[in-house]
């Protein structure tokens, strides 16, 4: 029973981890892309620069989502 409870808690934890961990990057990346679209609408000649900056910012914002994914996969397969 003891190890079964640990395994069950790890799987529930994996779900909670990925669920809440995905909120921040999703909203944050959307916000970055929204502001990039606003900037491109105002100055279309800088579209390349803005898209590049948007992707760099989104990559940084994505990192916490990837941390959640790694922890969730560890909880599913390694615990």
């Amino acid at each position, binding site marked *: 029973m003891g190890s*079964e*409870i640990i*395994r*069950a*808690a790890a*799987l*529930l*934890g*994996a*779900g*909670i981890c*990925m*669920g*809440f*961990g*995905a*909120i*921040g*990057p*999703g*909203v*944050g*990346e*959307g*916000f*970055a*892309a*929204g*502001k*990039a*679209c*606003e900037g*491109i*609408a*105002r100055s*279309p000649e800088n*579209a390349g620069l*803005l*898209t590049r900056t*948007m*992707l760099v910012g*989104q990559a940084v914002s*994505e990192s916490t*989502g*990837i941390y*959640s*994914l790694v922890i*969730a*996969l560890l909880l*599913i397969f390694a615990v």
Partner: protein
Amino acid sequence: MDVGNAVYLAAYLGAGLAIGISSLGAGVGEGFIAGNASYAIMRQPKARDVLLRNMLIGQAITETGAIFSLVIAMLLMFGGMINSEGGWQTVASLFGAGLAIGAGTVGAAFGNGYTGGEAVKGMGRNPKESKLLTANMLIGQALSQTSSIFALVIAMLLLYSTPAGNNLVKSLAFVGASFAIGFGTFGPGFGIGIVAGKTVEGISKFPKQSALLVRTMFVGAAVSESTSIYSLVVAFLLIFVA
């Protein structure tokens, strides 16, 4: 508490969570569209027919997530799901289906509401471009709605294809899958809504740049979608592998 009572508890609690949480998103989103439509009609009273029509289209799409939740709640209460033979795994699946669809549709409803609100605001600013704005609003809302469709898929899987049994590990894995997809789709749903809303705003101000803006919207929305795909993968792993 025996399994027979717990199945009733899980089904009714799941139905309540499904419709209770999802109504939050639909209410806020549709209110935002209606508020912006009122403001736009104040600015352009002559365009009131177009604005009213667009408001209703945007609200109808924002409502989708709440309708998904209504279907799941009805299935939980009256769909013959309440059956104690499935054991504790069925208890977990019923609760999980309600939580997954309830929480999973909130983000998309916020996002759809923001996009629809910006679209009617843009029409108030620039009524000549109303067709272009409606088209872009619909594309953006469709992108944002994908995350609530992921939640619907997981809720249906939890309702119809989870095995019966009394295994504690599997039961909590099903609840975990519902947390992963339910909360994990909030961010992408809302985030894509912000991208689409800002794109529609940009098109209403600078209609000539619409091709460039839509291209950027797709790139930004694709990156923002990634976390809801992670959640979907984790939910599938928890349902089928763990």
